């Protein structure tokens, strides 16, 4: 089975106050930043070499640049990494995605990215309301999104995904509908709509008391509004927070939810290989020094496509994020036996407004998605 490649680019111009992903803000010296990006790129290339040797012959069919803000690397560095990955992992007919924040001067980056084989761009639009963008501490304004979409398109990239955020300060169902409408108008083929979560350790967490965030019921309503509005625009919900036009679901992200193998490179990047999970430490300097994911330094065969102990639970846990849920057919294909009856029994006592159980398998309704934590816990006993 071809694997997915994930490259974590841990750089941003500035940190957004709600974000707890691993990324470092710009240093203030453009020259120092450029040197850091170079050093980082060298480390990624070296890691690709190392992993390719280790996973001899393994092919990849997706490559995803996430962050951070991958566009900060610029087209040349992105292209070098893509080309190296192609040499090591094939990337035949692969989906190659980069994340970018709407900003000036993306044309060149996108063009180089596309020339190297990049074919998908994911933009952090977040909202069509300038007020909501301000309250999120975003650097861009609504018109920047359209400009970024144009830049991608003129580079020949048609597969564009836009991120939206839900449950923002002062957000109303009307503004959510407006954002969904705007994403459609911009021609997005894929939309991710994430409920804002206040993460410990972020500036948002520190001032959570003074944030006028919607309460639990209002958050749920905003989520349902977003789902319906996107559906009206022709997007089909295929995961808790992901929507696409037919045929444009993210192939890379689907690997996560299907318990398929992927290799993550870069500080904080996670991998799932040979039934093992491991991650690089959240530490750029360690990564630059060539440190490897701790647990895996002397692990055995990572190419074996075995399902480890607990794999079945993990599979169910992840598949329940998908609209398709845990399907009888897919489970059969994956494990060579039918879905154990216990899961159906557990699902059967849960409210049918939240969980659907039938001959096809078990899946959550939209209301059920909103409660996926407790529902999943109950299904797994």
């Amino acid at each position, binding site marked *: 089975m071809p694997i*997915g490649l*994930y490259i*974590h680019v841990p750089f941003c111009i500035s940190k957004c106050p709600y974000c707890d*992903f691993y990324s470092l803000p710009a240093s203030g010296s453009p020259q120092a930043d450029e040197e850091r990006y170079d050093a980082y790129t060298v480390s990624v290339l070296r890691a690709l070499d190392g992993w390719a040797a280790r996973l001899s012959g393994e092919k990849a069919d997706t490559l*995803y640049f*996430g962050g951070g803000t991958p566009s900060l690397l610029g087209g040349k560095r992105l292209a070098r990494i893509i080309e190296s990955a192609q040499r090591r992992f094939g990337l035949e007919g692969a989906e190659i995605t980069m994340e970018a924040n709407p900003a000036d001067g993306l044309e060149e980056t996108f063009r180089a990215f596309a020339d190297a084989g990049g074919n998908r761009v994911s933009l952090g639009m977040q909202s069509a309301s300038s007020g909501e963008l301000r309250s999120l501490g975003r650097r861009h304004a609504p018109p920047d999104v359209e400009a970024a979409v144009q830049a991608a398109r003129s580079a020949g990239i048609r597969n564009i995904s836009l991120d939206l955020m839900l449950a923002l300060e002062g957000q109303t169902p009307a503004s959510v509908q407006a954002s969904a409408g705007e994403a459609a108008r911009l021609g997005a083929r894929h939309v991710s709509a*994430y*409920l804002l*979560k206040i993460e410990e350790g972020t500036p948002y967490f520190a001032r959570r008391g003074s944030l006028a965030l919607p309460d*639990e*019921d209002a*958050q*749920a309503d905003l*989520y349902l509004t977003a789902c319906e509005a996107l559906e009206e625009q022709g997007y089909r919900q295929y995961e*808790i*927070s992901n929507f696409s036009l037919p045929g444009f679901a993210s192939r890379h992200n689907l*690997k*996560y*939810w299907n318990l398929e193998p*992927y290799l*993550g490179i870069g500080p*904080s*990047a*996670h*991998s*799932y290989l040979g039934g093992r*999970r491991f*991650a690089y430490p959240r530490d750029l300097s360690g990564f630059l020094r060539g440190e490897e994911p701790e647990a895996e330094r002397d692990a055995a065969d990572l190419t074996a496509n075995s399902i480890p102990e607990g794999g079945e639970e*993990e599979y169910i*846990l*992840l598949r329940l*994020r998908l609209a398709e849920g845990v399907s009888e057919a897919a489970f059969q294909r994956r494990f060579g036996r039918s879905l154990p009856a216990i899961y159906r029994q557990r699902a059967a006592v*849960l*409210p049918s407004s*939240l969980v659907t159980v039938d001959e096809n398998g078990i899946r959550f309704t939209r209301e059920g*998605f*909103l*409660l*996926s*934590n*407790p*529902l*999943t*816990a109950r299904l*797994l006993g």
Partner: protein
Amino acid sequence: MNVPRSHIRNFCIIAHIDHGKSTLADRILEKTQTVALRDMEDQLLDSMDLERERGITIKAHAVTLSYQAQDGETYLFNLIDTPGHVDFNYEVSRSLAACEGAILIVDASQGIEAQTLANTYLAVDHGLEIVPVINKIDLPSARPDEVRQEIEDIIGIDASEAPAISAKQGTNIEAVLEAIVRQIPPPKGEDDAPLRALIFDSYYDSYKGVIVYFRVMSGEVKPGDTIRMMATGAQFDVVETGIMRPGRLEPNKGLRAGEVGYIAASIKTVGDARVGDTITLASRPAEEPLPGYRKVNPMVFCGIFPADGAHYQDLREALERLQLNDASLTYEPETSVALGFGFRCGFLGLLHMEIVQERLEREYNLDLITTAPSVIYRITLTDGKVLMIDNPTNYPDPGTIASAEEPIADAHILAPNDYVGNIMELCQERRGVFKDMKYLDTTRVDIHYEMPLNEIVYDFFDALKSRTKGYASFDYELKGYVPSELVKLDILLNGDVVDALSFIVFAGNAYARARRMCEKLKDNIPRQLFEVPIQAAIGGKIIARETVKAMRKDVLAKCYGGDITRKKKLLEKQKEGKKRMRQLGSVEVPQEAFMAVLKLDDD
């Protein structure tokens, strides 16, 4: 041990919580050099953790000390430390009966408190010589002269000679010791008369069996004697006699009239050596036991269940062990639909109940759910049968009840007069009937109410403390039964009665309590996957309702970059959280909800 009877002093110490009883006891031990200084542990007499923490004495302790007095003679002091709480009044009365005198400690800044007063009267009733001591004179707020006057006015004893001391700083302790020698009479009693010894405490020792503490009133007992407990009739062969030195037992050749000591006689349970019983010799029994024996009966009952049903056996063993040392604790198996297998336990009072619960949790590491405390109601059925009901589960069908009665208590509240309004309001709410009010001095009052016991067990003391900023002290005594109108209130969650939440309540309070109960439950039951109605009902009639809205959102929106560790952690958290929940039908109820509904007067 050849101290003549004239040189023995048997005494106890009476004090309110925090007035310095244990500190003074420590100083006395120090001065009599019974304990080497390096072995001194603070507050030597209160040896249970709980006692130290709460600053109260739960079990009686006794210790024998030798004192070289100013007259050059050596005296033997038997200090018997009594429990300091009304729940243990009977134990207190037996300890007092073993003494000729009592040191009354009064805090120089606080003055006399309800507890002190009650115990002092008890001591006076037993004919004890009261030696007043004014403690904490080192405090800036000390007013020793006023307190001296207060003692004379309220208790009616001469306090002009009362030593003014600071137990904490060790000031004037000598004066207390001399007062003990001078003022407390030596014990009387004939060595030749048949043995009569009063049991005032006992505890279980895993090597020697039950160790019985007693005071010989007449006659003599020595190892090898066969003794008989006059109330239970049980007979035992004495293996060992001796006296209690601090921290250890010191065997001797025998004990005579006037002396305080212990015996070990291979006794299996403390139930065979009940406090208040009289020990005599099987070969030459006394004709009459000592007066005052009674079997103490529990007054307050509640269900105790293991939070995790798998720990039922552990709970049973823990209760068995506790009962080895606590004959007044009763328990019998109880089954609840909601809580599974547990025990219906009986206690002397609320404090006793709390102590037992805390010891079970701490010393036996058990996680418990307890149900609301209940008193014993007397129900007369239409067919003339009389039932004593301490468990709402057994409450009969209202149609079969001819009349109902509830226990009532005499309650005394001592407090600064600023709080009279608050206190009376509280007592009124709790169906108290005002009896009288006395001024203890210009600023403090003794308010006397007659109050149903079930109002007292229902969180009364906490409510009193919060409405008097902790300044009130409180004491009560069971008085008897009075006719009452009672109903059984049921709580329904999602339509199902939760038996563990049912309780018996005065009909006039039913609506208010039902409403508060539903509100409290609503606040303490987290939102579930579906809407949960909470209802209170009498018979089939719903009298209050609240709703816990359905949960709407609990989702991890993003698993970024394939990082599912957080998702897994959340799942673990959910599972952990579920463990702390009680599944009642389809509803998950946290343990805290059971505790919270026991405290309805919080706000």
